[in-house]
């Protein structure tokens, strides 16, 4: 397998977890170049882009999941970025389907995506004026109780 060679082309830590899975940890600045190398390596499918909110460490972790059809390997690229004014570079020109994932990142986590023209437009949430809902400091129960009328059991019993 050529996967071991990834170390030589990617700036970051490459860890071969299993035969069919590699984890790659990179810096924010190296995301695009790492994904570019991976694409040249045959990782032709972008499965998912998402983020994890590590609120205690004041960081977001952006996660890209890639798949190589030829080698049947999953590569997971992770990058930690600061929680204050989070910003990443778009990878739309490498993987066109990243567009919607990045729009979702902006909407659900508040991570700005430079170079994506749709980042910041409302997509899934309409009429939203609160914190991005997937952040850990967003109180979902409070929001739901305040905004949506609940059914009380009493009125059902009559």
């Amino acid at each position: 397998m050529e996967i071991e060679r990834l170390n030589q082309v990617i700036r970051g830590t490459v860890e071969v977890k299993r035969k069919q899975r590699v984890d790659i940890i990179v810096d924010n600045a190296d995301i695009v170049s790492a994904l570019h190398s991976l694409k040249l390596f045959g990782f032709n499918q972008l499965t998912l882009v998402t983020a994890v909110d590590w609120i205690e460490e004041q960081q977001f972790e952006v996660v890209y999941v890639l798949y190589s059809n030829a080698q049947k390997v999953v590569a997971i690229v992770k990058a930690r970025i600061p929680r204050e004014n989070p910003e990443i570079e778009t990878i739309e020109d490498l993987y066109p389907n990243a567009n919607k994932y990045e729009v979702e990142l902006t909407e659900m986590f508040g991570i700005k995506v430079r170079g994506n023209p749709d980042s910041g437009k409302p997509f899934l949430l309409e009429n939203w004026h609160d914190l991005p809902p997937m952040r850990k400091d967003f109180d979902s129960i409070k929001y739901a109780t305040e905004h949506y009328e609940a059914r009380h059991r009493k009125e059902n019993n009559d």
Partner: protein
Amino acid sequence: MDKEIEQGYNEILESLRKRSLWILHYCTGCGAIELPPTMTSRYDMGRFGIVPFVTPRQSDILIVTGYVNIKTLRRIITSYEQMLDPKYVIGFGSCSINGGIYWDSHSVIKKLDSYMPVDLYIAGCMPRPEAIIHSFKHLMELIDTGKADGYRRYKENYDFYRKNQRKVLGKWR
């Protein structure tokens, strides 16, 4: 005399109506997965004259299959208002009754009947095809006895519904 004729005419109409109900084939939540078995040969709701249909204008029943989030609510209200009278709404599954497992979600409404008139609820997560068939038969009874009057209630209490819709959707029309 006129009144009696009108009443008799209405009774005939209602009993004819209940034999030909078309469902707007629009699925909002995961409960919709129980509709295909209900439609197809195993449970075969065609027996009761109930078939799915693709456009709101030709349909009589709107089934709200499960959770309704803000984005969906806007669409189902539009679809509902496009349907012609008489029209009936079935709230399907516990999510439409009280939010179900999405009671704490940031985008799911919890009480469907504040936003549109619901004639009938089916409890369950998700309701089995038997329950759906049962609800259709119950809806037929309601229509026969003139109790399925959601579309009239919607017109009479339009301000109430509109106020609640505005509260979650913002100013949208």
